[in-house]
């Protein structure tokens, strides 16, 4: 019991000591997950809107596949991205393996189905006659999707929150693709795993606390935006 308490004490001291390495790790965590979320939103939200309003063959199959993708195990995503980026893989020439860029790619693959699937279901909650009304106002298909998405922006923002939450807490894919290289690809989750395995519980607790704080701060910001618009 005592080692837990002292772990917390030391962890908090470590945070306030302004340890440069820990803050660099936190910054990289945030950068990777924010960029991956942004990219997944940029593609997934319009894609989800399009899937929801368009009629095409095998639409239900596609939605089922996207929904399955929501539960994609990060280690599987990491493995696939690693194989593609490895020296002998088809994308090996990019030299992205064990770089933050590779980690972002892996995280986009994890977040894309989540944000797309949640956008599909958000868009399907829009009355089809509302969509038709927007079309009759002179909108092209994409313009009408945009107007509808703006209408359900709160739900879309919830999809963004869900996607970011998943990414910032994710460890499997960034571990495989990033490799947890000190000063290069070490992020909060991979560092926490490592420190725990090494028995450095106070550092692990400090990292965990920072991760929680970061996650809370970003979600608080998104929630404030969401509730302000309500």
């Amino acid at each position, binding site marked *: 019991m005592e080692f837990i308490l002292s772990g917390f004490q030391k962890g908090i001291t470590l945070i306030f000591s302004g340890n440069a390495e820990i803050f660099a790790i936190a910054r990289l965590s945030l950068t990777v997950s924010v960029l991956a979320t942004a990219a997944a939103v940029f593609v997934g939200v319009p894609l989800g809107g399009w899937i929801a309003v368009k009629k095409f063959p095998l639409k239900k199959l596609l939605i089922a596949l996207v929904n399955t993708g929501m539960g994609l195990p990060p280690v599987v995503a990491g493995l696939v991205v690693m194989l593609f980026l490895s020296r002998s893989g088809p994308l090996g020439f990019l030299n992205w393996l064990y770089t933050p860029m590779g980690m972002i790619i892996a995280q986009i693959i994890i977040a894309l189905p989540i944000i797309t699937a949640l956008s599909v279901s958000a868009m399907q909650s829009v*009355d089809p*006659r*509302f969509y*038709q*009304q*927007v*079309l*009759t*106002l*002179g*909108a*092209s298909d994409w*313009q009408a999707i945009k*107007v509808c998405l*703006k*209408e359900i922006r709160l739900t879309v923002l919830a999809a963004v929150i869900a996607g970011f939450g998943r990414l910032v807490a994710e460890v499997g894919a960034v571990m495989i693709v990033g490799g947890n290289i000190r000063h290069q690809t070490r992020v909060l989750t991979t560092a926490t795993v490592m420190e725990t395995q090494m028995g450095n519980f106070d550092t692990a607790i400090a990292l965990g606390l920072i991760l929680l704080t970061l996650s809370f701060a970003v979600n608080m910001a998104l929630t404030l935006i969401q509730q302000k618009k309500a």
Partner: protein
Amino acid sequence: MIKLSNLRLDFDTGFKLSVDSLNIRGGEVFAIIGPNGAGKTTLLNAMALLRKPASGTLEIMGCDALAPANKMFLRRAMSVVFSQPYLTNDTVYNNVALPLKLRGLKDGAAVEEALELFKISHLKGRNAKTLSQGESHRAALARAFAIRPKLLLLDEPFASLDERVKDTIARDLRKVITVYNAAVVFVTQDQGGALTLCDKLAVLMNGKIMQQGLPQDIFVRPVSREVADFVGVETILPGKVASRRDNLCAVETGGKTLMVVSDCGPGDSVFVCVRPEDVSVSLSADAGGRRNNFKSRVVSAAPWGLEYKVELDCGFTLRAAVTKQLVDGLGIKPGAEVYASFKATALHLIRRA
């Protein structure tokens, strides 16, 4: 403006809409009336290019409206207003400006003018979701007119409004239509509303157009029993033409003889149509020159808007619309004896097979 021929739309449910021919001219207010499930909205959606017909031709403003290449152009020449206003979660001003924005236009004057026409300028800063029903409908109409459409399609535009709001909006709409000289097509099951707004009328039933033409023709001279029933002919009596002199026919029905001006010939099986507002009810036997006069007994009298609907038994069942003053003055109540009279020219005969 709109020409359709042999248009067919099929549904999974087995319902079929098939319109042989419909021609709507520019500057004309054309109403399509019919009961629930007749296919009115489907027909309107086809004109709004929201639903692709299975076969047939549809021409709007001289263009083949079924050609994908013309779709955006035609869609941007018209406005559609549904029974629900479907406003976005934004200010009234931005709602009215939306169709302009979607066309890449910025025309503050057009927005202000549309707001002004429908008397909602004072609401322009309000969020559209906070409007009353009547205000929302005004906003939807203003939005439809902001682009000065050449063609306006209205689907039950006033269905959810109460009578008073409906009347004032319909009056404003009539004015705006005159100002812009747009062709207007609207579908409704409210035949009263149709009469106050339209120049031409078509009756749609079971996916088919039963009759089209001037509203007074359709209301007074329906072509079939179903149309007669729908347009408010409340007395429809099966009978047989016994004789004819010039164009005055004597029609036997339920043991009585009615005199009707018609071109039907002796021996024809017919339905006699009597509109309730053409029946005069009085206590005296003097029919004042009306050729049909029957002593009858009041079966029931029920208030209907500002009037009363009175059911009379004169050997056959006759329904009459009577003002409240007359109901009070004549002491019309079940069991009372009155005289019911109507002109030979007010009646209409439908040949039946």
